[in-house]
């Protein structure tokens, strides 16, 4: 492909090829602190291709392709090319990764122990992890938590934080460094999106796992409430939140069983970021 970049995030290495320069230049800059070894053997190839024969120039439209693909993925506008690349990498992980149990969750670490937060999009798990990452925790990832199949530890996958809509303002107020933010992409299929480069420490320690200590199911926009989640329910909810539970077979079953029996799980409803941080502080004090 005309433009390309090899990039390591946590344990995975991606080779991203593009028909256009712009998305690759943006990735190169935003991921400057990550390993970019052009001579590396990649786990996956991601391709940003013109959606039709003329679409490299005329109303450029990006089709996300690669080693693993969704047959019916809708093409995206070139100005959202950075988002397309991120989605392409996520897709490879979601469909292809087998070395850990992959849970759609954010995670942060303190004192060698990890807090894992899982929930639907809009639950606030991503913003909460980003906030905690600025307040004394190590940010481990906002999208995928990788559970070790052998020892149950959580491995980081600290890709760029994908801030959507209101979360953009929240993090701009929190992070006093404009160079850590990517370009504003308006009117994407998910609304407005800005990427945030994780803190330096998070990138430097991206190969360092942590033992999970607490699992939260946060829910934004509900009156403050904290209630325990039973192990059986946690198990079922996490099978739904994992993209490779079925593909891993028995190893996934064992890893998930170990996780839900070893880590306390709570559902947390909250009305504001500040309230959530309060609750997390209090809960962490109890388990840590």
């Amino acid at each position: 492909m005309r433009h390309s970049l090899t990039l390591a995030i946590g344990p995975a290495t991606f080779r991203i090829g593009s028909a256009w320069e712009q998305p690759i230049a943006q990735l190169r800059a935003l991921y400057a602190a990550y390993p970019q070894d052009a001579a590396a053997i990649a786990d996956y190839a991601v391709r940003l291709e013109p959606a039709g024969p003329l679409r490299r120039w005329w109303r450029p439209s990006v089709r996300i392709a690669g080693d693993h693909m969704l047959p019916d993925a809708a093409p995206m506008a070139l100005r959202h090319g950075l988002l397309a690349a991120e989605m392409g990498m996520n897709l490879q992980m979601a469909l292809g990764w087998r070395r850990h149990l992959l849970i759609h969750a954010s995670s942060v670490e303190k004192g060698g122990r990890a807090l894992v937060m899982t929930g639907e999009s809009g639950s606030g798990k991503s913003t909460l992890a980003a906030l905690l990452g600025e307040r004394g925790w190590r940010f481990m990832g906002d999208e995928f938590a990788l559970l070790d199949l052998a020892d149950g530890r959580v491995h980081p996958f600290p890709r760029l934080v994908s801030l959507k809509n209101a979360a953009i303002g929240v993090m701009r107020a929190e992070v006093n460094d404009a160079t850590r933010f990517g370009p504003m992409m308006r009117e994407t299929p998910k609304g407005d999106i800005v990427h945030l480069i994780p803190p330096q420490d998070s990138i430097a320690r991206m190969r360092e796992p942590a033992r999970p200590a607490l699992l939260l199911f946060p829910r934004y926009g509900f009156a403050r409430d904290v209630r325990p989640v039973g192990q059986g329910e946690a198990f079922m909810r996490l099978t739904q939140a994992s993209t490779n539970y079925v593909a891993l077979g028995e190893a996934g079953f064992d890893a998930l069983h170990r996780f839900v029996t070893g880590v306390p799980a709570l559902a947390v409803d909250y009305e504001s970021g500040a309230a959530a941080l309060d609750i997390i502080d209090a809960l962490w004090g109890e388990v840590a």
Partner: protein
Amino acid sequence: MSAAALVQLMRTPESAAALRADQWNGILSAARAERLLGTLAALLEYVAVPDAVRAILADARRDAEREQRIALWEANRAVEALAPLGLEPILLKGAAYAAAGLNAARGRMIGDLDILVPRDRLEEAEGALLAAGWEWVKPDPYDDAYYRRWMHELPPLIHRERDRMIDVHHTILPLTARPRPDAAALIAQSVEIGGGLRVLSPADRIIHAVAHMLADGDLSGGLRNLWDIKCLFAEIEDKSELERRAARHGLTAHLARARRLADHVYGQGETRVTLADRVFLRRLLSRDAWGRDSRKWLGLAFYIRSHLLRMPPLMLIRHLWTKWRKGHRPV
């Protein structure tokens, strides 16, 4: 071309030591695109490769093992569903290779379950599968009518709880194809392998793989099909029986071409290939370093060719038109 590098490595696994990172990247992407990564992993199991490659191959090996286990379970469920009818389904393709412990199954990905039943018992079989939890994938009146009238199989069924597809065939080529394999003879010669399972005879397995690759498809996935054929050739004892069966099913020329292609791609390359073979070879080896099909125009030609093989021209136009109007494109 990365597909060429892939088959070169499959021919000579010990050449792995000399590969550079960029060559590995191309080979791994081509192997994924051709659904041959598990096969490659099996071939390289005892060969020294870089750590990054070893991890990728280990994943592929586990995926293939799991797929095979599940395919055999699906076969077991189909046997169970059809047993009350006194009907023993004949496994085809990947599941058959796995159940019979053939070399072609090593590392092979298996998707849908393909079974063969006598045409006059198709309706009964369909009823029993529906009763056992399989459902129509997508009710589309045109596709459904098309399948039932012209295809060699029922429209695909999917199990509502296990989410796995089954294709029930009554012969091995569409009724519109020029060669007309003798389905009754395939069934009569099939062999039992235990557990209520049957597979085609060694010669007929090859006949089916050849028909599937050269008389039925658009050659997409052709490298994998050809690998199956290469492995099946190596395991057949009675070569003259194979010729007789090919003649009986009207596939003598296809068999000869498959033999030349297999030798050229995966073997010693001593057989002379024809000019037409060269077109097939270009199509088979068309993956580039990014796993893309670099000869798409050739793909389109093969799509139309594969339909010409299967359907008389007027019917072809009607079929393509109906597909394109709904937004389908062959490439």
